[in-house]
């Protein structure tokens, strides 16, 4: 984390949420590069593009037009080159069913969208640092589950 930056991608159809997200990372003072996408289809095109630098962490909103977050998750988990991406569900839903289903399908992190900006910053900081530990400390990624 000293020199290299962490790449982050977010797919969310809500423009305000995308802005909040980008602002939060800007204020965190962690060296990140953030890209945002407004629906699942655009996200998948981005990920599949040969010149894309794949994100270290991908944040997926569940309810999106064209292709929803759950469909994206299933698709991503089938592609081998996406194996190293940590997937964070980023949703207004906190239904136990959504949490459990997405975890079972391979999501690593489940975040219920917070209502205020400071909490969002705190959550994102925690997610990025914990993910970094998995990345750098030889921890077993298959066991990486985090709910916030």
């Amino acid at each position, binding site marked *: 984390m000293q020199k290299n930056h962490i790449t982050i991608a977010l797919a969310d159809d809500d423009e305000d949420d995308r802005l909040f997200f980008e602002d939060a990372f800007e204020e965190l003072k962690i060296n990140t590069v953030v890209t945002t996408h407004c629906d699942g289809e655009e996200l998948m095109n981005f990920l599949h593009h040969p010149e894309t630098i794949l994100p270290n962490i991908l944040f997926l909103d569940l309810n999106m037009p064209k292709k929803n977050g759950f469909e994206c998750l299933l698709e991503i988990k089938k592609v081998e080159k996406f194996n190293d991406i940590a997937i964070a569900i980023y949703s207004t839903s906190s239904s136990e069913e959504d949490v459990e289903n997405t975890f079972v399908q391979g999501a690593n992190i489940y975040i219920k969208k917070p209502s205020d900006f400071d909490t969002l910053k705190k959550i994102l900081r925690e997610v990025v640092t914990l993910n970094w530990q998995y990345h750098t400390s030889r921890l077993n990624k*298959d066991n990486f589950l985090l*709910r916030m």
Partner: protein
Amino acid sequence: MKAYLKFDYTILTKKIVEEKLAALNLKFSVIGFGEIELQDTISNEKLELITTALSEYGIEIIENQKSILIQKIKDTITEMVNSEEPLSVKSSVYLTEKLNHSYGYLSNLFSEVTYTSIENFIMIQKIELAKNLILNNQLTLTEIAYQLNYSSVAHLSTQFKKITGITPSAFQRIIAKRRVQSLKN
């Protein structure tokens, strides 16, 4: 007239490194090609001086001293957490003794580079080990709590939830379902 020179790069580099380090009054020994051992722990300023002195000749310190120490801290913690013998001293004392640096120095350096504290890292490692033990299915939660030095199952569960956001049993259930799922595919 032209003269043709033949170089021995090993001797050359060794000489340069020796001269430069001697000029900085450092005690050191050359372990082998590309590896030297400094006899004292050195300050950041001193390290900068060495880096500058050697960079003139295109010689770089490959990994900086900090990253090496961070790695040592992590390795020591992993070893400490995974050891089956319970610790007889506080973890801060243990790290200080093993790594020969003050705990304040270690802890500041660690936070600065990894964005997490040593305490938090130890907690993460313990919970990782708990996860592995849970998935092995050989020990009960009570036994796992005991092995990891938690005072009770409740204490382990609370810390597990604090780090992961889920309970140990939810973790166990999710991973089991995942395994069934991947068998289906």
